């Protein structure tokens, strides 16, 4: 019984044939599932980033502003609601020029900066970092998600495979404006 003491030398009781068969099934399942992990890591087309760097928020902000200054093509005008008032804001749209592979996305409560305009089929190294709280990078509707930390630069190598307008929402709680935090990526 599970409330009663087993007889001494219970380890000597052999496994029945059903138990042995089930154990074989379990071990086989475990081995197959496990092998799929490094296999997909090595041969699969989509893996999380293993590339990251330590970077101060000030340095990352500088890199982002330099990137925007060099590659900005226009401003997008957006309307932000604060209670009952509506405020107009301008967000730079940045189209990385030819040969520019390192692009920067800055997360800050409660905005993603800048708006990225990318080209289909071109490979980019997207650098992401936060100026303050932890944020989430959640590309919709693709549903691709990463964790953005302050003090760290997460580098994801990405190639857009379809054109259109995509949104980046924050899915890591970052205080009261969390649900207003959203950015945009345009692919041409």
């Amino acid at each position, binding site marked *: 019984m599970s409330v009663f003491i087993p007889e*001494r*030398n*219970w*380890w*000597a009781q052999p496994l029945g044939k059903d138990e042995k068969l089930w154990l074989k099934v379990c071990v086989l399942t475990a081995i197959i599932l496990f092998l799929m992990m490094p296999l997909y890591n090595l041969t699969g087309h989509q893996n999380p980033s293993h590339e*990251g*760097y*330590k*970077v101060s928020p000030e*340095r*990352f902000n500088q890199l982002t502003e330099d990137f925007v200054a060099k590659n900005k093509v226009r401003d997008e005008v957006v309307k932000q609601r604060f209670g009952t008032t509506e405020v107009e804001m301008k967000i730079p749209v940045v189209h990385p020029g030819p040969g520019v592979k390192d692009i920067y996305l800055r997360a800050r409560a409660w905005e993603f900066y800048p708006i990225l305009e990318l080209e289909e089929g071109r490979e980019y190294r997207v650098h992401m970092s936060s100026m303050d709280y932890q944020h989430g990078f959640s590309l919709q509707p693709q549903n691709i998600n990463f964790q953005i930390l302050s003090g*760290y*630069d997460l580098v994801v190598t990405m190639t857009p495979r379809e054109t259109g307008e995509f949104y980046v929402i924050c899915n890591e709680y970052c205080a009261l404006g969390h649900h207003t935090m959203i950015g945009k990526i345009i692919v041409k």
Partner: protein
Amino acid sequence: MAETIDVSFWEKVCDNDFLLLAFHVGVSTLSYFVWGLIDILSIPTLG
């Protein structure tokens, strides 16, 4: 009543509470914390 049966090694292991505790805390600390700490602390600084 003295224990005259030969108790198998694994049965003795299961009866040893503190051995089990040391094993689990040891393995988990090494594989999760120590390895993780090494991984995080060896993240390079952006050049």
